[in-house]
């Protein structure tokens, strides 16, 4: 794959914002995957390295990540590195990100946030610690690390950020609203980032999966149901959306009409429902 150099956009004059013309979002620059052991992240890692990207796999489980990195290197003949990343250790984020920049010799092109934590709704209702954990992992930590990424890419005037949110964030439902609230926050934050970073030529994608067959949903979903997507399918959708510079991706596609419907139900009726 040829690597395209990231060009600075033409100087903006007054209020008009100019956008860099062609930018190959998936040329072979480095991509940082936060939460690389997650089900979707694994599929993404394979897909991205097939496309020739070098990867930094970030997460807590260094052993697993090392195994993943070896596999990607051997299978796809790309660079794959491992970086220790703890979402809840906010103080460590600046240094972590500096480290990533250093290790990629400043050629870090994209950041994908792929981690999350879903605890049972009932547990988050009984225990504030559980609720707080859900909020912190899915939202607060994302604010912290994405700010690092945003600043860097903004300076660099190019690249992309992909954030895995969820359809659960589209509306608060009694069966999953703590998680839903965190994801709703994440969606709005990502939306703001997209707005802020547009003029710097950084592409920001909000990813909203529906049901995906991964460890997080193990035992909760029937993988044979047509509503449940494979991580590979989701990963393919994500890569395509990045290439096409989409803004919000529902994956699989049918979640967009489903959520439009769900969101259109008047609140006075929705409050009685058991969704």
């Amino acid at each position, binding site marked *: 794959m040829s690597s395209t150099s990231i060009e600075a956009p033409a100087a903006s004059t007054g209020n008009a914002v100019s956008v860099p013309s062609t930018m190959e979002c998936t040329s072979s620059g480095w991509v940082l995957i936060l939460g690389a052991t997650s*089900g979707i992240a694994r599929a993404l890692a394979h897909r991205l390295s097939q496309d020739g990207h070098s990867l930094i796999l970030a997460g807590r*489980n260094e052993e697993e990540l090392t195994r993943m990195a070896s596999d990607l290197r051997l299978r796809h003949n790309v660079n794959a590195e491992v970086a220790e990343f703890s979402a809840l250790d906010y103080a460590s984020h600046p240094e972590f990100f500096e480290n990533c920049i250093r290790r990629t010799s400043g050629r870090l092109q994209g950041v994908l946030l792929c981690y999350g934590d879903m605890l049972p709704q009932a547990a988050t209702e009984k225990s504030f610690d559980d609720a707080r954990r859900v909020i912190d992992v899915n939202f607060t930590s994302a604010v912290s690390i994405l700010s690092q990424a945003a600043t860097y890419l903004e300076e660099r005037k190019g690249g992309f950020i992909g954030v895995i949110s969820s359809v659960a964030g589209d509306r608060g439902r009694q069966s999953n609203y703590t998680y839903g609230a965190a994801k709703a926050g994440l969606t709005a934050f990502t939306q703001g980032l997209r707005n802020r970073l547009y003029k710097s030529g950084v592409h920001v994608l909000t990813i909203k999966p529906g049901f995906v067959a991964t460890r997080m949903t193990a035992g909760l979903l029937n*993988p044979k149901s047509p509503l449940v997507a494979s991580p590979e399918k989701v990963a393919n959708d994500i890569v395509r959306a990045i290439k096409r510079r989409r803004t919000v991706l529902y994956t699989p596609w049918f979640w967009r009409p489903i959520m439009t419907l769900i969101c259109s139900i008047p609140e006075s009726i929705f409050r009685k429902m058991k969704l």
Partner: protein
Amino acid sequence: MMSADSFRGTSELLSGWGNYPRERCRTRSIESWQDVETAVQSSNTTNVIPRGMGRSYGDSTLTQDGVVLRMGHLNRFLAFDPETGVLECEAGVSFAEIIETFLSQGWFLPTTPGTKFVTLGGAIAADVHGKNHHVDGSFGNFVNRLTLLLADGAIIDCTRDNDPDLFWATIGGMGLTGVILSAQIRLSRVETAYCDVTYRRTQNLESTLEMFTATHQSYRYSVSWIDCLATGASLGRGVVMLGNDAPAAALPRKLAAAPLKLPRRRAKTIPFDFPSFALNPWSIKAFNTLYYAKNRDRREFVDFNSFFYPLDGIDHWNRIYGKRGFVQYQALFPTETAHVGLHQLLERIAKSRQASFLAVIKGSGPATRGMLSYLFPGITLALDFPNRGKATRDLFEKLDEIVLEHSGRLYLAKDALTSADTFARMYPRLSEFLRVKERVDPNNRFVSSQARRLGIVTGLEPNQSEAVGNSMSAGTH
């Protein structure tokens, strides 16, 4: 909602490749070494058994009251030395993946069964063999090291030097000593993705066996299809395939342009179970006659896919046997008794009118040191039979008798029906194996339906399959 600790698994109707027997089992998908540890230590299950791609034919990856660990996602390459071809990878890596990644660099499996859709763990657990067994032995010969997770949760690196008993119990041990997490193996250097293959038709069993003996030294690969419905003077007639790795210099120009590239094969699939009358003595006889007639003597270059994996080109080929499935019979006769034993076996089969169209015979070489490994020098014959219930069971009992009488034995990776008594007589090293099992798995944490049936694991609660059906609770559907 279920918590991640509850570990009940999902309920699935599972079987081996023969689709017989089918059992409802709890399964769990494994994606990390932690997952295996959790599973093995979990108090929510009495036992576990690992499962790869389910290419063994019978019940070696089924368990009535435990949990089947689906290891397919534990499939990462960990290390590779491009000078020596030494490869370390997780147990869920398939031979197909190894070929896809390393053949283009000039490396191939040192020996391979008739399908590339087997996992490394499964290949080691069954100590698989291929067309080159008479020269290279079975797969266990190419394993340097095993990383095993034992019943007590310990993860150990086991080699033939640091713990030969455990090493040789695990090779061919059908997953009963512990879970293989990863293994280090030696790949073989190849110049091309082609074999130089010679086909020779033979008139009867004697000439088929003579062909093996005559070509023992000169061909690395040898195998024969035989017409198991041919009777009388033609009993055991067949088509012998003899091959050697084709060197780059020998390839015709068209192939020499990309010597390590496998030609694309158009995917075919059997989309549904064929009706049970599809395979019957008449249709099989017709097939056999045609196949024998069509395969005249010749020599040609055959790509690895077509030579080693002819059936892999058809997805779900096992469906041609219909819903009742089929049962494989694979038996080995020592060199001294091979001719007589095979003759009797084939006669008995022809008499029973229960036909097999896929009858394959091969000369085997020196035994590997696995305690439950299948092969020693002799001739092995593999056949498929449509599952006709009692008729099939009765036939197999008769065949077992013939095999026992001639000091032969069956292959665990194919077996679905034999008895504990017969098995014990066929595998004199069973007691050695049990000593190792007693050492590393005294509480029978690793149990399969096959192990129960064959008495490899004893002293368990009786079959709980009804209970499993009721206590199923896998999450929401």
